[in-house]
């Protein structure tokens, strides 16, 4: 259980035993989405540095995880993401404007500026609202899966979270409930080696995170989280098993966050430059590019073109979103309840009166 599944071998070819055998267009789609995600993150960080947005949680280095997992999802599946999984949203077709609107928190944000940047949601793809408290979404993913199972629907739920998330009470509750109720749930742990500054070696004394599944009576698998094909394969299999009534799976994807925890973080305090450099070598996008080149599906020119295209798409979306007005003031009081209760109506009216 402490061994790790990979597809793309050091020489850039695929291990035929594990290769998910995706059609070419899907391979290219995976690449384009990873490039888009990287471009999105770079832009968002630049926007934050420029003071145009307040905060951001980047996923650079972990693109293979969210994009690979996102590709394995089907219509009807439920997504309970963490703040670092916008790749899943992109993969499932969430428009760039929705994500960008959220980080601007203006009228372009379908969630009306209610939450900090990186806390998006999209009902149309069943991607549930991201929450800051770590791992609270896990038992919810079990509940959504239970409901689907009860109605006889062949869908699954995926909950994603970090290595730090495995220490929470919610992880324990969710894994245990999923085991007991055999819900179609995939627990997708992106082990990026750190919970802010705390290394995974101080997070748990277990030999791996995947081994924790034994405590709940179901399968745990470790996968190379910088190998998009391996992630696609392992998550795809787990989802298929779930939809087929074969119960939950815990997947530990080994990866690394290349950048800071968030735009508020300074990782140089707790990580060495050598460590970061070593992981940069394993960059999931470059690694996949090498594979695609080897297969004759891409070359330097098309790689550059993909990057440029991604950049341009993000630039355009930023333009649209920046043009949106601020959220209307009255929205402050809405959506607390289904209907506006008297005390919030009073508060709103008093504030409006005071404003004049």
């Amino acid at each position, binding site marked *: 259980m402490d061994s790790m599944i990979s597809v793309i071998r050091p020489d850039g070819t695929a291990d035929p035993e594990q290769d998910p055998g995706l059609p070419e267009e899907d391979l290219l789609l995976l690449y384009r989405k990873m490039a888009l995600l990287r471009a999105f993150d770079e832009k968002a960080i630049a926007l934050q540095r420029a003071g145009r947005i307040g905060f951001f949680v980047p996923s650079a280095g972990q693109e293979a995880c969210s994009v690979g997992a996102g590709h394995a999802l089907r219509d009807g599946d*439920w997504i*309970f993401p963490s703040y670092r999984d916008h790749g899943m949203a992109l993969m499932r077709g969430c428009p760039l404007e929705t994500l960008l609107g959220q980080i601007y928190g203006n009228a372009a944000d*379908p*969630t*009306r500026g*209610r*939450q900090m940047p990186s*806390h998006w*949601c*999209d*009902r149309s793809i069943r991607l*549930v*609202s991201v*929450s800051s*408290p770590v791992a*609270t979404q*896990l*038992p*919810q*993913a*079990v*509940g*959504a*899966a*239970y*409901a*689907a199972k*009860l*109605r006889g629907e062949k869908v699954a*739920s995926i909950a994603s979270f970090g290595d730090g998330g495995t220490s929470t*009470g*919610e992880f*324990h*509750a*969710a894994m*245990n*409930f999923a085991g*007991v*109720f055999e819900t179609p749930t995939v627990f997708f742990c992106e082990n990026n080696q750190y919970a802010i500054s705390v290394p995974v070696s101080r997070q748990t004394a277990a030999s791996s995170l995947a081994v924790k599944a034994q405590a709940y009576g179901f399968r745990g698998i470790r996968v190379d989280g910088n190998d998009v094909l391996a992630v696609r394969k392992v998550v795809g299999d787990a989802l298929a098993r779930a939809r087929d009534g074969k119960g939950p799976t815990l997947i530990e994807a080994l990866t690394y966050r290349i950048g800071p925890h968030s735009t508020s973080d300074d990782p140089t305090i707790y990580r060495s430059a050598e460590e970061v450099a070593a992981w940069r070598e394993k960059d999931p996008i470059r690694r996949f590019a090498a594979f695609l080149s080897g297969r004759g599906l891409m070359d330097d020119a098309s790689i550059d073109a993909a990057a440029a295209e991604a950049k341009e798409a993000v630039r355009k979306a930023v333009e649209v979103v920046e043009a949106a007005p601020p959220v209307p003031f009255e*929205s402050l009081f809405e*959506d*607390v*309840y*289904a209907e506006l*209760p*008297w*005390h919030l109506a009073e508060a709103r009216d008093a504030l409006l009166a005071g404003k004049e």
Partner: protein
Amino acid sequence: MPQATLLQAIHDALLEGMARDPRVILLGEDVGREGGVFRMTQGLMRRFGQERVIDTPLNEGGIIGMAIGMALNGMRPVVEIEFADFIYPAFDQIVSELAKMRYRSAGQFTAPVVVRTPSGGGIKGGHYHSQSPEAYFVHTSGLTVVMPSTPADAKGLLASAMGGEDPVIFLEPKALYRTVRGEVPEGEHRVPIGEARIARSGDDLTLVAWGAMAPVAEKAAGLAAAEGVSVEVIDPRTLWPLDIGTIVGSVNRTGRAVILHEAPRSCGFGAEVAALIQERCFLHLKAPVYRVAGFDTPFPYALEKSYLPDPRRVLAAVRAAMAF
């Protein structure tokens, strides 16, 4: 109309709700095979199957988290927390998730979960089988907090909660489970959320009390009547959002108010009611708004009777308000 205990009334609301709406699911510790430690859900698992009446592992955060996920995916979960004292392991799921889901997603996702739990003292349960946590939930924006004190209200309010679109913390005064009986309408019966009940009319003083304190208030009103003081007793039934109109109307007429609750006094829900009354009825008040409440100590075992407000303590406050 048939007579029922509070326990039977709640049981009936659950049974009828499940029969009416296949989306309703019950979950909690011991709710299935055993039918709950108070036997509230007795027979429901046999009738509706173990998929819809679920015995869960021992983890309240997991129970409420799971219920939220079910609700997101179209079900109508009704959770039982075995005692209100054991709701704290689920506090994060309630405060961070249940209460905020609608707001943070701007209505894209909602979690209409009903959390039922036996609350309050009166069964010699000590620290951990007696607490009244309503103030924590009233202070948590996004929650509806309900606490009935009569069988008919219990049935009708639970039906409304199960049929509503918002998460509801439904606190059940366990001391009354088998000690009060009353007429309960058969079949579908709803009491609207957010409307107080005037338990007794009066002219001299308004006494606001909920849960197991409502009958204590009525007894105190009886004692006061013997002294020539006419006390109006208001049971808010829905603690939040509060039916402030009924309370203000009453106090503006009587000019005096006493609030009565079991929970510790300081920062209890009584503080909010007192603050609202003095804000809104200032010129009508002939005396301060008094509070009679549990003491600011953990709930004691041996001295439970001294801890819980009784009609004589309430009467002392009524007298003080009248004499002010």
